[in-house]
């Protein structure tokens, strides 16, 4: 039936024709039929395009001035592996610091106690308001402000001996991360319905138990994707610590190419390792999301 005649029929039904005549439904069992896969032309075009671009890129890099065998040879050099390790453990340490500080700070911001609230706000204000490179440099040069540090009655030491590149990096990146993570955690806390807190209180739970058992586990579900983001950002941010002498991946790659001058080859080594680390992290994130997503039905596909 053509569109026009259909429309006309709908608007002005012929008063003389009876009710629309329909065949009795024929016996069909769809599970006995041959399924025709729908052709997804858009998808196929996209795949073709992507393959083309990848092929072109591969060709360009293969023919370019990169000695890939040199890259391969350096992947597992001890210096490089030490750098990879430095990046990994520093990221983990700073993330743990960030999460602990972030949770404490987010809870403080939601606290009825104005003193706690303002301490948290002040902390965020300072650490989010200044570049992280600047914070790293300040920590590293703390000796210029306080030549000696110590606890009265217990002892003191020269600041230069205390604030090593490792300590300065931990403080710089960890405290900075805490300020950002606290906002992520706070968003998670805000996402939990007020009724949850009341239900917890109604069965006699105290503030902290409610937070730990009821509110935070539900907030985690919302918090994990942006937290994964933060973690990945942090892995790459450790490279900033090379300016104060921390031996991360980028730093060790540079150490090597200062000696052998294979700059691009070694940068590719670093790129490959960063990708490996971030890939592993993303897999861990999916596992965590499944763990904390239990009991929730999401309207959109989440993976």
């Amino acid at each position, binding site marked *: 039936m053509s569109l026009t005649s259909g429309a006309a029929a709908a608007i002005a039904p012929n008063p003389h024709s009876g009710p629309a005549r329909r065949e009795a439904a024929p016996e069909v069992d769809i599970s006995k039929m041959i399924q025709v896969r729908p052709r997804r032309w858009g998808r196929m075009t996209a795949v073709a395009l992507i393959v083309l671009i990848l092929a072109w890129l591969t060709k360009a890099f293969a023919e370019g001035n990169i000695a890939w065998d040199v890259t391969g040879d350096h992947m597992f050099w001890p210096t490089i592996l030490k750098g990879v390790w430095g990046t990994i453990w520093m990221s983990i340490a700073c993330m743990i610091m960030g999460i602990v500080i972030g949770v404490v700070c987010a809870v403080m911001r939601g606290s009825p106690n104005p003193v706690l609230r303002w301490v948290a706000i002040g902390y965020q204000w300072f650490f989010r308001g200044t570049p992280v490179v600047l914070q790293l440099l300040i920590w590293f040069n703390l000796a210029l402000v306080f030549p000696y540090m110590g606890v009265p009655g217990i002892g003191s030491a020269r600041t230069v001996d205390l604030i090593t590149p490792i300590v300065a990096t931990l403080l710089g990146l960890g405290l900075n991360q805490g300020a950002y993570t606290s906002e992520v955690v706070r968003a998670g806390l805000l996402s939990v*319905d007020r*009724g*949850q807190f*009341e*239900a*917890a*209180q*109604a*069965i*006699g*739970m*105290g*503030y902290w*138990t409610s937070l730990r*058992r*009821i509110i935070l*586990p*539900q907030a985690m*579900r919302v918090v994990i994707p942006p937290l994964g983001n933060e973690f990945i950002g942090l892995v790459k941010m450790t490279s900033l610590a090379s300016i104060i002498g921390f031996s991360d991946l980028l730093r060790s790659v540079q150490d090597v190419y200062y000696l052998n001058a294979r700059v691009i080859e070694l940068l590719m080594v670093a790129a490959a390792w960063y990708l490996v680390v971030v890939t592993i992290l993303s897999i861990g994130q999916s596992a965590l999301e499944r763990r*904390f997503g*239990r*009991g*929730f*039905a999401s309207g959109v596909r989440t993976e």
Partner: protein
Amino acid sequence: MNARGMTAMTDAAAPAAAPIVSGRKVGKLFGDFRALTDVSIDVAEGEVVCIIGPSGSGKTTFLRCINQLERIDNGALWLDGELVGFRLEGERLHPLPDGEIARQRRKTGMVFQRFNLFPHMTALQNVSEGPVQVLGESRAKATERARALLTRVGLGDKTDSFPKDLSGGQQQRTAIARALAMNPKVMLFDEPTSALDPELVGEVLAVMRDLAREGMTMIVVTHELGFAREVADRVVFMDQGRVVETGPAHALMDTPQEKRTRDFLRSVTHKD
């Protein structure tokens, strides 16, 4: 029964047996708005009291004051012989610390209109969480008790379901089991069936009816007049934050003394 029907009477003299819940001229302000004015209600042990009244009359607010989700501004509330939320030393009133408030709350079990189950826990975990975290029961014992409670509300086969996989009626019955797990002395219900599809109302009311029969003290805010008539010992009618009339269920509903009660009952029955 009829003798202590009128509010004026309960105001003047407490009933012979000390009531387990006793509101004396309770007042509650939200900013400048008076949500409760001079609310006096006594509930004896084992008694079922239904509170009815139009929307916004303060029924929810009164329940929330009893389990201290809100703090009252006037009068006094007594629960199981204790002043709710404060310690009185002569003329001096000390607000209770959080731990004490939590302890008082344990005397009441609250069932919310919107269930408020913990979505990240199974039905069983929802019920056993309080006993483990608050009462310090062992996980094994609490789980066993939770299973028995869920069976009692007819959910023995749903123990491992998450709330999202339960129907509204099943969720509300889980919520009742969760409240019962704390061995409360008084159960508070805030319109427990009004968020449910009509065909699910019956199963929740049946559980509540059983509870009443077993002698549980209950304060039930409800629009289910049939339930109130059948189960309640007394019915309290509230309007604009005040108790207008209270009396035995049949007396209040068949021969209401106040015009406002009559109007309300008529409007509700006509809606059906």
